[in-house]
């Protein structure tokens, strides 16, 4: 799959007209009201996305808040980022390589635990994450209460509770986005810790890989993928750096290295 070769945030920052334009990726499990959040935020200002090679991305839309302009990119709904399906790969690659200014992860308050798996995986790639706990109304009806402040503290990133169907909480969601971009909110994301044996392998691999990796990529996350023998991630990184490098050659080189 072709990778978007120019990081969005940089290209937009280089362009003086777009000084004030920020890209927000919208991620989440299927059926958590992601589309409702998307529609509520962008209203009618949406069109089908045209990110290079990203035919699966359904839509992007724009909105403005406190003099900042936002482009919201709706990623396919996924349970994880293991890249075992094309949807998961698209979501993962967008978050990793297109480097949105903020990744907004929509969660279902009625089954938060399952949704947290995705949040934790996204936090391994980027720390610019805002969690939106949606469907609060439905959770209340089922007698489920979610302590949003505690969640933010546990994850080390901001979190907002919403009920997007009625529009509840969306105003403060936009305020928090603004505060994050203004640097008013510091995030210290929780890092996933694995069993000691795995940690040792991860550290070893990360140490050796790090010198070869660009600064913007989370080397621990790359080390994890390599540990899983998902070498395609290295191809992607190479591809990303030399954007006209032929893919077939890369494949051959991976094969050569592993011989």
């Amino acid at each position, binding site marked *: 799959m072709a990778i978007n070769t120019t990081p969005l945030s940089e290209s937009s920052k280089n362009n003086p007209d777009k000084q004030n334009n920020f890209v927000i990726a919208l991620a989440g499990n299927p059926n958590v009201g992601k589309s409702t959040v998307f529609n509520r935020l962008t209203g009618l200002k949406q069109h089908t996305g045209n990110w290079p090679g990203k035919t699966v991305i359904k839509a992007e839309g724009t909105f403005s808040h406190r003099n900042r302009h936002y482009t919201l990119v709706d990623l396919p709904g996924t*349970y994880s980022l293991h890249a075992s399906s094309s949807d998961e790969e698209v979501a993962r690659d967008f978050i990793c390589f297109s480097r949105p200014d903020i990744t907004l992860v929509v969660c279902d308050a009625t089954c938060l635990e399952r949704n947290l798996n995705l949040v934790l995986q996204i936090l391994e790639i980027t720390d610019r994450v805002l969690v939106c706990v949606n469907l609060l109304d439905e959770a209340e009806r089922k007698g489920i209460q979610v302590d949003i402040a505690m969640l933010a503290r546990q*994850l080390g990133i901001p979190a907002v509770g919403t009920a997007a169907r009625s529009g509840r909480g969306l105003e403060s969601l936009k305020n928090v986005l603004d505060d994050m971009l203004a640097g008013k909110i510091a995030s210290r994301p929780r890092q996933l810790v694995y069993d000691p044996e*795995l940690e040792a*392998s991860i550290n070893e691999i990360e140490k050796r890989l790090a010198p070869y990796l660009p600064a913007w990529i989370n080397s621990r996350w790359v080390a994890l993928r390599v540990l*899983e023998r998902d070498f395609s991630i290295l191809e992607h990184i190479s591809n990303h750096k030399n954007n006209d490098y032929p893919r077939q050659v890369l494949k051959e080189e*991976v094969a050569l290295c592993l011989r």
Partner: protein
Amino acid sequence: MSAINNPELSVLREIEPLLPANTANIKDRIVSGIYQQAESISAQVVRSENSQYTGLEARLDNILTSRWLGFPIMLLLLTLILWITITGANYPSQLLATGLFWLEEQLTALFLAVNAPVWLSGLLIQGMYRSLAWVVSVMLPPMAIFFPLFTLLEDLGYLPRVAFNMDKLFRRAGAHGKQCLTMCMGFGCNAAGVTSCRIIDSPRERLIAILTNTFSICNGRFPTLIALATIFMGALVSQAYSSILATLAVVAIIMTGIATTLLVSSLLSRTLLRGMSSFFVLELPPFRRPQLGQILIRSLLDRTLFVLWRAVVIAAPAGALTWILANSFIGETSVFALIAGWLNPLGQLMGMDGIILIAFLLGLPANEIVLPILIMGYISAGSMLELDSLNALRILLLDHGWTWITALCVMLFSLLHFPCGTTLYTIFKETRSARWTLLSALLPLLLGIVVTLIINQGSQIIMR
């Protein structure tokens, strides 16, 4: 070969030896690390007063999907359902057969009364009507009992728990955990099972699921298995235990099918379709109170009548074709007997005979008609008798030299032979490849030939 000028890639050479060999294990540990932390965060953040997932449900799930009890419970439920089916189907089956064959007599009398030509009454009554009557009386009662029971389990929410139990086995075979669901679908109908393989994203794992779907015994084959098991396996022990033994024989064939699915999946993922299995999240839906009325309507209309109709539509022309083959003569022998004669040596080697093999070949359009064709083949080959019950069928088969070994070989061959025409067509549509379709037919057929050969030759050596 081009020189390597990508530092990111050349470092792989340095790292690769450090990587643990067992990737599946690494992935499992990474995933379980993520899940544990999600669980611990959730425990501190979520307060639930009266959660949907109450203590009782959680406890039930713990039992149904437990490491030790999960499989025995599955087996027990399957056995129970089949036992109810076999015991319950006997009487109505006999009743239906008596009624339908009484009607046959009346029809014959009518044809005689209007002086219809012999070939016409032969084609219509002994050919078409008789095979229809057989399909209806042998297949309808077991289906009418089996399907509502199966739908009941589905409605309760038990099937996703089965998938949960089986997931690990499938992943060990290098296949996708969802293949268990497509396999369960195959127990209904293989064509539907093949279509349902679309739920598997990875093309490699989808192909494995498609190629192995035929190892799920479908509706078309259950009645044949049940009838043969009742006649031959049940007769091995005293009356009191016969239906139990018959049930266990069918369960054993089903389990053989599941084992074959895993074995062949694992074989394929190590040879033709090499690769790793991918992850998926399986949601266990809440248990629901089943709606009995709905179950009856859905299982009777959607499944029983659907399958029966398909069988009838295909059985009638196939019955006519069989009658024509059996009644057109080249010299002294009929075409049917001629083909049976050619196939006989191979059939004998496999513990069966030529007529049985013809029945499977002519049964290509639908597995439902294998047994009726077989019966017609035997009847046209000589001994004319009134088939009004399973007992009459038993006598007919015994007259043609059947033993329980023959029955076992036929049951195994019914499990392991080419999928029916509809399924093959569906496989072609799904894979868009004549080669994979051909493989999907040859793979089980070869297995079937080898297995029946071994069973038959082995039993002859032991019995000698």
